[in-house]
């Protein structure tokens, strides 16, 4: 279980005026600003939960992950991961934890992945039997068997992420922090990584905290999401709830037999109308849904009519823009 109470982290960051003069001035005196990366963040995550951490760039997601992984120290607050203070860096905790950073390699670039795995086996004291079993299982599921003896730097981005994932999960961690695991991957590779994580979570029930800019990752993997804006937690709950509560916009898509000849005037509050050949799309809000529907049904003869929710990306974007509930 992960427990976070009133977590705060501030950084002192140096600033420099732009241009050559700014650089010269910076040699003599620097101005510092205090940046609040996390402000009063509290949350609990139960064993077996997969939680999506969402926020814009610089919102504080990675800072939170780094604190939970014991990499950096918080300014204030209490954190307990499986009953340990992560920044005590207790080996008992670190043996149960894994951190995968999409933008940062953990394996040695100049060596084949198997060489790095042999080192990880000793570091995590993985018994021979389990090690063999894990190598076989993970290589098989991730379909990466043939790449394990190739220098990591010679692998494609997708293959590299797969071998990184494999390395991080060799010791069957109970807590997994995934920071942008699908960044830069093509659609096939993204799908493969997502599928793997889903199965892994189902089979071993670890806590998984996932940060990703790809909403597809979050949508497919996480039932629960935590939204962070400017260091503050603004939403913690089910993804479906956020969509139901804050997905105000609806799209009515009507298909006609032929392209409409005459389009009667639409009251502005009912939404925005777009016509593309025999397809009419009316973007409206939930409050005016019935009025919009009336307008369409009265004026056109549909062969098909659907009501669409806005994509989750849009819902979250609008939620973050508004600053939460």
């Amino acid at each position, binding site marked *: 279980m992960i427990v976070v109470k009133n977590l705060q982290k501030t*950084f002192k960051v140096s600033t420099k005026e732009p241009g050559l003069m700014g650089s010269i001035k910076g040699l003599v005196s620097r101005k510092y600003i205090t940046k609040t990366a996390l402000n009063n963040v509290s949350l609990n995550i139960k064993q077996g939960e997969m939680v999506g951490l969402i926020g814009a760039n610089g919102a504080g997601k*990675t800072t939170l992950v*780094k604190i939970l*992984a*014991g*990499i*950096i*120290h918080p300014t204030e607050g209490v954190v307990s991961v499986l009953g340990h203070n992560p920044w005590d*860096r207790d*080996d*008992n905790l*670190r*043996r149960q*934890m*894994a*951190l995968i*950073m999409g*933008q*940062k390699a*953990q394996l*040695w670039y*100049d*060596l084949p992945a198997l*060489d*790095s795995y*042999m*080192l990880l*086996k*000793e*570091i*995590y004291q993985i018994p021979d039997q389990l090690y063999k079993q894990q190598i076989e299982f993970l290589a098989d599921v991730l379909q990466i068997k043939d790449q394990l003896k190739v*220098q990591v730097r010679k692998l494609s981005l997708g293959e590299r992420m797969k071998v990184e994932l494999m390395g991080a999960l060799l010791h069957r961690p109970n807590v997994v922090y995934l*920071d942008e695991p699908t960044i830069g991957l093509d659609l096939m590779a993204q799908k493969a990584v997502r599928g793997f994580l889903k199965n892994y979570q189902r089979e071993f029930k670890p806590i998984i905290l996932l940060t990703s800019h790809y909403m597809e990752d979050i949508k497919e993997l996480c039932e629960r999401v935590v939204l962070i804006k400017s260091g503050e937690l603004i939403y913690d709950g089910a993804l479906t709830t956020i969509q139901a509560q804050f997905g105000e916009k609806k799209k009515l898509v009507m298909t006609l037999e032929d392209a409409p000849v005459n389009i009667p005037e639409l009251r502005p509050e009912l939404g925005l109308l777009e016509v593309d050949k025999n397809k009419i799309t009316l973007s409206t809000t939930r409050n005016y849904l019935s009025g919009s529907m009336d307008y369409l049904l009265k004026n056109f003869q549909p062969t098909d009519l659907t009501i669409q929710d806005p994509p989750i990306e849009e819902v979250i974007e609008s939620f973050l823009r508004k600053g939460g509930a």
Partner: protein
Amino acid sequence: MSWHKRVISTEIRKILAYRSDFWVNFLGQALVQLFIARALWQTIFETNNLTQMQGMTLPELTLYYLLAPLTLKILIGEQIGFLSRDIYDGGLNRYLVWPLPALGYKVLTYMTYSGFYLLQMAILYSIGRFILNPAPVETIEIIRLVAGVAYLMVAALGYFCFMAMCEMVAFWADNTWTLGVMLRFIAGFLGGAFLPLAFFPEHIQTILNYLPFAAMVSGPVKLILGRATPAESLQSFIVMLIWIPILATCVRLMWRKGNLKYTGVGM
């Protein structure tokens, strides 16, 4: 196999990963250095019509110039930036997440490089003796060689502390590459790698004998070449042993303080 042994084995595999780089590093660099020193000193000896300088013949001086820079290389171990680069770009994260002492891991990788350069020194020294045919140089006694090697490895540990302190400045100042270069120059100069300490004025030599650099660089070279008495070698070894705990304490302190400043950027 314990993680310690596996770290050493992994580092060796990294050293051996690139064939051409390995050979250039292993043979090329030292041989170039040796021939430059040989040509320079030969000119000085011939121009001044000398047979000895500060008690050293040309072959002895050449051998000294083979051993001293290689000793410095052993001391320096891993390349400059072995820790500061990780602090700068967030590469330290992996060591902090692994269930092992991060600094201990760095000591091991450092010492692996030192061990590798020790092997290089042994081979190059044998080649050097053969090529230079330094007849006046007395035969190296095995016991002296073993003592010299052990001395060198302890010295490498001491130098690691110096290096680590320079590297850890990166916790506060981000980029510290120049500090490493400066340290290498200072250690080389005050340790006698660039110019044998015998060429320094005597009162300076007395001061240098109590500083760690001479004990780390000249100490083992003189021991191997038989240019120091057992008592002199023991004295310089003790000087170094006194310095190591002081330096190690500073390293631990900086590590603890620096970790509080670490932001793990680049992640």
